[in-house]
């Protein structure tokens, strides 16, 4: 045991004395979570729009007032000429132009359904879509308001209610994803690099010739990273709760247990990578290309798995991160207990065992 503690202590020296790895360990999680939380968002805020009002009557004024009163839009410009529309878009500041047709109020009163045209800059299709939806919603609300005394026959009202994330905050989606990415990166990449470093330096050989058993060597290298990854997971959770008001509906203990399980999965992967790579650079490349990309693209972190082509959906099943994200979302947003996520947990557990067995085997072969 004392032997082992000495090993762990040495490993901490390595980590604490290397500014680069310290930064990756603790700087990166904080930066990533802040970046994803603040910068990358699907919501729109104070989008600049322009108005081309042919009527300039009571109704159009009221609609324009409604739009400018919402925090989503800022009316930046009034256009009076058809030709100006294009030049306004080309300048790039205006993301949408609203065109009210002639005699708007008159048509409305005489029941001729006036039209508002929304022209949106679709160089960014998602934003264009959102803008058009938001403006539509504002106009619909207004129509309802002016019709409230008129009995309308045969009307269907769709009422949508968003559960688990009523405000549709994108940060709720990013936190589980970022947490997964960071734990994967720190655990798998850092361990594989630190093990291959010993190979490169030749110290691995010395360790193998010593009375230490290979399993002790590996455990000694890995345990500090378990410890650090757990701290990381806690930092991420605390940050997201206090800065982004991310809820944790479910049990924190269950969340902790699942996180440790995923950390061990990632560490096992890291060991596996270190057995197949001879240099630190190779280990880093394999970790980045082989782990990071699938984690970001195929895990459902950014792109929903359900809308991928079938082959990709099938591949996504072998990515541990996918299961961990499902678990995280279930615990944090839905507040479910282990009864609802035992299947995902079991899958992660099986994958972890598989990676551990495989890397032990590989490790032994390498010793020959």
């Amino acid at each position, binding site marked *: 045991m*004392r*032997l082992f503690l*000495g*090993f762990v*202590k*040495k490993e901490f*020296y*390595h980590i604490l*004395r*290397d500014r680069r790895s310290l930064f990756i360990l603790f700087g990166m999680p904080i930066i990533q979570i802040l970046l994803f939380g603040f910068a990358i968002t699907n919501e729109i805020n104070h989008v600049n729009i322009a108005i081309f009002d042919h009527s300039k009557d009571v109704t159009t004024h009221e609609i324009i007032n409604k739009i400018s009163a919402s925090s989503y839009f800022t009316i930046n410009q009034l256009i009076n000429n058809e030709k100006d529309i294009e030049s306004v878009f080309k300048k790039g500041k205006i993301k949408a132009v609203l065109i009210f047709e002639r005699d708007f109020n008159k048509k409305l009163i005489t029941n001729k359904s006036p039209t508002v045209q929304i022209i949106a800059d679709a160089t960014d299709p998602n934003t264009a879509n959102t803008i058009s939806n938001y403006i539509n919603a504002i106009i619909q609300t207004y129509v309802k308001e002016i019709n409230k005394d008129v009995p309308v026959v045969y009307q269907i009202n769709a009422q949508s209610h968003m559960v688990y994330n009523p405000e549709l905050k994108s940060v709720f989606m990013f936190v589980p994803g970022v947490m997964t990415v960071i734990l994967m990166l720190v655990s798998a990449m850092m361990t594989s690099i630190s093990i291959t470093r010993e190979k490169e*330096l*030749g*110290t691995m*050989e*010395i*360790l*193998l*010739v*010593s*009375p*230490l058993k290979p399993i002790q060597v590996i455990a000694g290298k890995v345990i500090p990273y378990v410890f650090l990854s757990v701290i990381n997971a806690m930092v991420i959770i605390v940050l997201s709760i206090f800065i982004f008001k991310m809820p944790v509906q479910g049990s924190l203990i269950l969340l902790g247990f699942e996180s440790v399980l995923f950390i061990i999965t990632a560490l096992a992967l890291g060991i596996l990578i270190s057995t197949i790579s001879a240099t630190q650079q190779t280990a880093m490349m394999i970790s980045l290309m082989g782990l990071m990309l699938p984690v970001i693209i195929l895990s459902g972190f950014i792109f929903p798995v359900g809308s991928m082509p079938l082959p990709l959906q099938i591949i996504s099943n072998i990515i541990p991160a996918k299961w961990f994200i499902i678990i995280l979302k279930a615990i944090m947003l839905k507040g479910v207990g282990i009864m609802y996520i035992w299947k995902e947990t079991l899958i992660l557990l099986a994958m972890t065992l598989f990676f551990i067995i495989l890397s032990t085997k590989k490790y032994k072969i390498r*010793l*020959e």
Partner: protein
Amino acid sequence: MENVIEAIGLTKSFGAFTAVNAISFHVQKGEIFGFLGANGAGKTTAIKMLIGIANPTSGAAKVAGFDVFTEAESIKRNIGYMSQKFALYDDLTVKENITFFGGIYGLTRAAIKTKTQALIDELNLENVANHLVGSLPLGWKQKISFSVALLHNPKIVFLDEPTGGVDPITRRQFWEMIYKAAHQGTTIFVTTHYMDEAEYCDRVSIMVNGKIEALDTPKNLKKTYKAENMNDVFLKLARG
């Protein structure tokens, strides 16, 4: 004299390729045994079998009285090993390195403390004991590395090209350390590409294509092969 290494027909094959082909030899206690051979002759594989990190395909060998097949763990406790990379941790201080390596050989804290002090005194390291090893010159690393390999008083110490890349003066000093250790009863098993170093050994074996082609004292080898020096002996054998 007591034999600390005994190998009989030790063989290692990788598929159809036989890296080490039935080598038989013995090394006596306190001897400096030079293990020579061209690159690829099978030296490294042979050493790996003797230090317990590779299983022989056939044959038999005992190191420090333990069987390489069944008692590899006991062998590891009784040998020291130093590779051509002088593997120490660059980002640890001299003291931390000594403490760590002493620790993995199961030395007690008190023992490590005395050993560290003795080592620092012997190598005149007072001023750099708390410096990172990475900041020290190669020759110092080599000496510290050797001392670390001897930390747990092994019966045999294996040195795999311990003088690669080191200047002649430092090499000379290093060999003085080797002599001293041998004098105290530690058996030295050393590989080298420097033929002047081969002359310092008590006995020398020369491996060619997986086999030991010659094994004798440097003096007898020179006589047998009618050579001026070990360099000529080596060239005659290695060229076949």
